[in-house]
Every structure is written in C-alpha cells, then in structure tokens.
C-alpha cells in the first residue's frame, strides 16, 4: 500500500504537468469556438468533443496516405535536412507541396537491412518519392466532407477541402465557396476561414467589396489574440497582406500603408507588409 501511495505522487505530478501542457492547446483551439463555455464547463461535451476532433484528426492524416496510394511520408530529421542523405519527396502534379519530407520506408541505397528492407518494400506500399504523382483528388474529397461532419470545428478540413474541390475541377467553385461558408457558419470566430473566403471573392469571383468585408471580419476575429495554430496565424497575416494589396491596387496607397502598418504591429518581420508600409 505504501508503495502504491509513493507511486501516486510522481504519477500525480506527471498528470499535472500533462494537463498544464494540454490545457493551453485546448484553450487555443477553443478560442475560435463559440462553444467555448460548453467545452470548458461540461465534462461530457469536452470528452465527446475531443473524441470527435481525434477522429477528424485521424481522417486528416488519412488524406495524405490516400493521395499517396498508402505510401507513408514523414518529416526529415534535422540531420537528414542538413546532410541531405534522405531522398526529398517532391510532387510531379502540383497537388501537394512537400517540404523536407521523405518516405517512412527507406529506399534500397539507404537501407542497412538488406534482405529485410527488400521484403518490407515489397509487402508495404512503396515508391520513389522524388517527383511522384498523386492519386485522383476525387478519392480524397469525401474524407474532407466526412471529417467536417464528424467535427464541424475542424477548420483545416474546410480550408483544404475547398482547395481540393477546386483543384479537381474549376467548375466546382460554387461548391468550394459553399463549403467554406459552411465552415464559417460553424466557426464564426475563425480567422483563416474568413481570409480564405475573402481570397476566393477577390481572385475567383472578382468581387473586391465582398473580399474586403471578409478580410476585415478575419482581422476583427483576430484582434484580441495572437493565434499559435499555423492555419489561423497564417490566416491573420494573409488578411493584412490581402487588404494592403487590395488597397494598393485600388490606388489608395495611404490606406494600403495603414493596413500594412497595422499588420506589422502584429507580424513585425513580414517582408510583404514592410514593402507596403514604406
């Protein structure tokens, strides 16, 4: 019994550290939700919410696997990046951008296992990741629909899903916009979704008035906090950039400068904003 008691102390400490570590992530996620009070105050909603987001995350990971026909990619280690010993994955069809990624199963030249490596390359999906092609996008599209059904707060699902719809066929523009609008309806405090809607309005619909409305909404959503989530962070940065570009194109250089300066107060090192702020 004493041993159990002694074990409980370090376990409690570890659990405490884990909870502290996780809570910031959860809060970060919840900041873009209107459901924040439910997530915070009702244990059952919190548990079920995390279950849903875990499943959506699983489907998100699956999309990468599907587009590569089951071939698994991984980020390169720092050493691999430095020494360039692993084959860097690159896309031959512009569907996906690979930065410092390589295959999980190594190529023959780099595999120290010899016979065992050859067996693994035969029984598991494997190809040379340099300049590779992807499977048709239509095979992945249902997954984006599925993951956003499972977890309507999964913002990356809406962002990339809309991109994929458009990549599959340019005629899918209205579907892509409807998908993004659905995401914005479910996540009214998201930054990235409104920036993306603004970008679509500006580039694909040629509607600068509507685009400005969306960019302003994105900035308003991010006015009181600095997101750590890369999607939301990029969304905020891009909203400032797009507004500066938009105003510059309209010939309102003073307004463009003002938006760039606003942006620089949040992202002081951004070279695009610096250019417009001059």
């Amino acid at each position, binding site marked *: 019994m004493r041993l159990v008691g002694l074990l409980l102390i370090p376990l409690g400490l570890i659990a405490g550290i884990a909870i502290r570590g996780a809570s910031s992530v959860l809060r970060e996620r919840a900041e873009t939700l209107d459901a924040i009070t439910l997530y915070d105050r009702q244990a059952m909603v919190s548990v079920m919410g995390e279950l849903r987001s875990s499943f959506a995350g699983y489907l998100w990971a*699956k999309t990468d696997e*599907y587009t590569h*026909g*089951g071939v698994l990619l991984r980020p390169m*280690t720092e*050493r*691999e990046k430095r020494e360039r*010993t692993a084959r860097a994955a690159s896309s031959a069809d512009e569907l996906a951008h690979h930065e410092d990624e390589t295959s*999980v199963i*190594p190529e023959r030249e780099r*595999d*120290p*296992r*010899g*016979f*065992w490596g050859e*067996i*693994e390359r*035969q*029984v*598991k*999906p494997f190809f040379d990741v340099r300049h590779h092609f992807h*499977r048709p996008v*239509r*095979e992945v*599209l*249902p*997954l984006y629909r*599925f993951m956003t059904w499972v977890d309507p707060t999964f913002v990356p699902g809406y962002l990339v899903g809309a991109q994929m719809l458009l990549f599959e066929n340019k005629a899918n523009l209205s579907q892509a916009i409807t998908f993004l609008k659905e995401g914005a309806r479910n996540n009214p405090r998201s930054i990235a979704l409104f920036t993306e809607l603004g970008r679509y309005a500006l580039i694909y619909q040629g509607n600068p008035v509507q685009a400005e409305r969306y960019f302003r909404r994105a900035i308003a959503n991010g006015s009181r906090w600095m997101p750590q989530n890369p999607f939301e962070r990029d969304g905020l940065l891009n909203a400032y950039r797009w507004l500066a570009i938009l105003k510059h194109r309209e010939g309102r250089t003073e307004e463009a400068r003002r938006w760039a300066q606003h942006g620089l107060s949040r992202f002081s090192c951004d070279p695009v904003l610096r250019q417009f702020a001059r």
Partner: protein
Amino acid sequence: MRVSTWQVCRSLAMVGLLETVRRKDLYVVLILTMLMVLGASAFRIFGVSGLEIFVKDVAFLTIGVLSTVLTVLIAARQLPDEVQRRTIYPLLARPIARGQLLFGKWLTAFVMAGVSFVFLAGTAYALLLLLGIPLKPIFGQYLLLKLLGIGWLCALVVALSVYLTPAANITLSLILAFGSGLFGRLLLMAHWERGVSALGINWLYGVLPHYDLFDMSQKVVYDWSPVPWWVLGAMGLYALASGGLYLLLGWLRLRKQVLG
C-alpha cells in the same frame, strides 16, 4: 508405445474445435461479423460513391485488429486452460510426449485462429462485393501471407504461455504483435541518427518479431499489383524458422516443467 504426432495433433485439433463450439467462442466471431455487416449496411444507406478506399481501409483494419486479438486470445489459453482444469494429467498419462502436446496445441490454435480469420476475411470480401467494391488478385496473396503470420503468432504465443501467466502472455503478445512495425522504425532511426552499425541492426532485426511483415492489407486497399512469389516464399521460410524456434524454446521449458 508412442502415438504418432499426426494422431495427437488431429485429436487435439478436434477437441479444440469442439471446445471452441462448447465455449461459444464462435459467437464472438459471429457477433463481430454481424457488426461488420451492420457497418456495411450503414454505408449502403449513405452511399459509398468516392468512399471506396475508405470503406476498404476500415474493413481491412477491422480484420487485421480482430484477427490478431482473436489469435492471441485463442493461442494464449491452450495450455493454461488444460493445466487449470487439470485435464492435462489424463492427457499426459497417455503415451504422448510433451513436444507432441505442444505441437498439437499450436496446430489447434492455428486451425481455430485461421478459420476465424478466413471467415472474417470472406465476410468482408462478400460485403465489399455487395457494395460494388471489387478486390484485385493481390487479395489472394494477402490471405496466404496473413495465414502464415497467424501460424507464426500462434507459435510465439503458445511458447510464451509456457513461460508466463496468461494475463502477462496476452499483454506481451499483443505488444509484440501490434508494436512490431515500430521496433524496425526505431532501429533504422538508431542507425541513421546514432550511427548504430548495419551489422548490429541486421542482427537485432533478425531477433525481433516481425508480425507487421505478414500484413499486405494496405496494398490490397490501394489496388497494388501482386508481389513476386519469392516474397511469400521468403516469408514462409521466416515463419517456419522463427515459429519453429519459438516452439523449440517452449518445449525446452515444458519438458522439464512440473505441472500443476
């Protein structure tokens, strides 16, 4: 007068199968199959257009997990159950060597787990066909390789059941079965990042279990072409050598073990 190993194996396999029916173990397989059918029905209601790969992926993931868990559970209880119910004493009072008993128990576990796997895979195949999702010829190779893997896993679990308690055996076997892919990854990272020698890697790789190499389900899911037959031959040799070694280690312990 010794009884031939074939007779022992046949009798033990028959008794094992009857025991499985008596213990209603088959119900587990039937319930799991029913769940698969219900899952497939849900897909039929919502439609599977565009979801073919996802449906296949889920089906093969389910088969893989269920067949592995069933195999471990079936193989882990073969010897301990006989000891616990004291039925091992009348068995060993007959002219049966302990090695024959161990081999017979392995065969019983292999037949039962193999039948369960084929039943699950057959049901999945039929359901996929019903949903209009045909499978490529590589499915045949998948079945064959997985059966080899089940035989190999049965040998590992039966051998471990001589050394460990049933609970410890099940836990360790499941870790070895599901974690086998990870061991290989860790070894490779140790080689690239920490400079562990290639010889050491190969030696360790040979010793560690490789249940993951018996699973070609991902190639079936993504409709890859069949693999060269030498791969299956090599894996068969590995299963024979490695599984034989496990059974030998089990026998070395069992032959001197005081039972009960």
